[in-house]
């Protein structure tokens, strides 16, 4: 075993985390947990950004991660507000029951 962890190890981990996030969105029905799975996917991508940033000796990846975090914070504030509004109307956070737009 050599000293440093190669870039590929980080990329594989990142891909696996992203896939777990996708599965979460596909199999869960609770809007809150779907939301968490989306956060998981964002974080998986962040990991590869930071890994690339390190292995290409560039800071840009870390800056992008910084922006992703800011946008994620905004997204969570809005998303949770929407979920609360939905709960007030439907008494449920099950995405199967949220079909207001279905004619």
């Amino acid at each position: 075993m050599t000293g440093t962890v190669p870039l590929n190890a980080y990329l594989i981990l990142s891909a696996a985390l992203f896939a777990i996030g996708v599965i979460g969105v596909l199999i869960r029905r609770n809007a809150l947990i779907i939301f968490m799975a989306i956060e998981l996917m964002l974080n998986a991508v962040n990991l590869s950004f930071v890994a690339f940033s390190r292995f290409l000796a560039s800071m840009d990846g870390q800056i992008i991660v910084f922006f992703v975090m800011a946008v994620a914070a905004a997204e969570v504030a809005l998303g949770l507000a929407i979920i609360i509004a939905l709960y007030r109307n439907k008494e449920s956070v099950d995405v199967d029951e949220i079909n207001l737009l279905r004619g």
Partner: protein
Amino acid sequence: MEWLVFGPLAAVALATAVSVIVLRNPIYCALSLVGTFFALSGLYLLLQAQFIAVVQVIVYAGAIMVLFLFVIMLLDVGHEPPPWLRQDTPRLVLGIGLVTLLLLELAVAIGSWVSHGIRGSYTSDLVNAVGNTQLVGRLLFTDFLIPFEITSFILLIAIVGAMVLAKR
């Protein structure tokens, strides 16, 4: 040496990520996700991105997940039956099939990938000498000034939007 740190952190990240999507109680899901964020923060430290690592903890673990917990407790969301007990096997199979395909594609892509990236000038020695936070800060206020300002605008919109949605 690095593997000794990377291995456990990666294992924790994967295990907690899986429990986010399989546990039934939303509170446990949220806490597992906090675990994932911590493991990722550790990996960022390993990648010499100290600033991002700490911001990860402050923003994700300290703010976003607390909001999640807050909403889960406020809404008193009940337990959901585990996905494999629900009567929609076709969708489950389709979903997992698609994800397997995605994983295969990613594996092939990563396996056959050769870096053509242009190497930047921020070597590990430079980062250690100047400091990761200082470098990120300098870039944010020079090369990335306009995106930075736009980010603040997005956050403002989000605050106003959340207020409007919650006030109704």
